[in-house]
């Protein structure tokens, strides 16, 4: 299993634990602002990241670069995780004060991350 897959899967497992903890915490009215955050930690941090980690490892390999374009995959890893971590900070904060720049950066990070992952995986969706 390549390094990028191991990191993606370990981070995914970390997000799973974090999402479950935050989900439990958000049941309290005081922490209700964290509800959208834990859903995205689960769907983006856990599910999507796990899917890409396993797909990079298992999808049909390309000659020369068996894991596809690894630079794009690393860009995806950085964008997605920085975006998610920024969201974790910025979204609850937004409810208290106007901290809009962090949220815009979070949106940009996650979108760039997804675009890079898709570009990296696309050529490997093939017959053999």
């Amino acid at each position, binding site marked *: 299993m390549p390094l990028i897959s191991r990191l993606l899967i370990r981070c995914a497992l970390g997000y799973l634990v974090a999402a479950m903890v935050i989900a439990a915490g958000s049941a309290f009215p005081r922490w209700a602002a964290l509800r959208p955050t834990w859903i995205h930690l689960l*769907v983006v941090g856990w*599910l*999507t990241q796990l*899917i890409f980690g396993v797909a990079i490892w298992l*999808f*049909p390999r390309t000659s020369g670069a068996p894991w596809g374009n690894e630079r794009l995959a690393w860009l995806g890893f950085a964008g997605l995780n920085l975006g998610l971590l920024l*969201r974790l900070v910025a*979204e609850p904060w*937004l409810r208290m004060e*106007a901290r*809009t*720049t962090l*949220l*815009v950066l*979070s*949106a*940009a990070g*996650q*979108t760039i991350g*997804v*675009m890079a992952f*898709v570009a990296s*995986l*696309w050529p490997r*969706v*093939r*017959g*053999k």
Partner: protein
Amino acid sequence: MPRLSRWFVRLALGYLLLGSALGGVMLVAKAGVAVPAPVWAIWRVHGEMMLFGWVLQLAVGVGYWILPRHATAPVRGGLGAPLATLVGLNAGVLLTAAGSVVGMMPLTLAGRGVEMVAVAAFLLHAWPRVRRAARA
């Protein structure tokens, strides 16, 4: 990877791109920037694309590829049911999303109905393939 799985996976990746772009628009709107469409409409389409278009469709496509194969041809079973899943799932996502945007409940329900038929077709296809090893 069989041709049908490639279609499932490529469509799933397409929905991931669209769905996450819409998610980005929602975050930007939350930050106070004006966006060209009402956020509630974007939110429903975003959820539909990410859950059914991306996660479910990818799981179905990879499942069709890697589940144990039959010992005799066609090794992945007939094409009818998985093809119905591909068409139904994508038609369902588009119908449900369109129904949410224009506020037409019958369209949304029709989309959900088509998605349910698509999932049932995949269950019929996959059930006999979920076993220990290929039968001789």
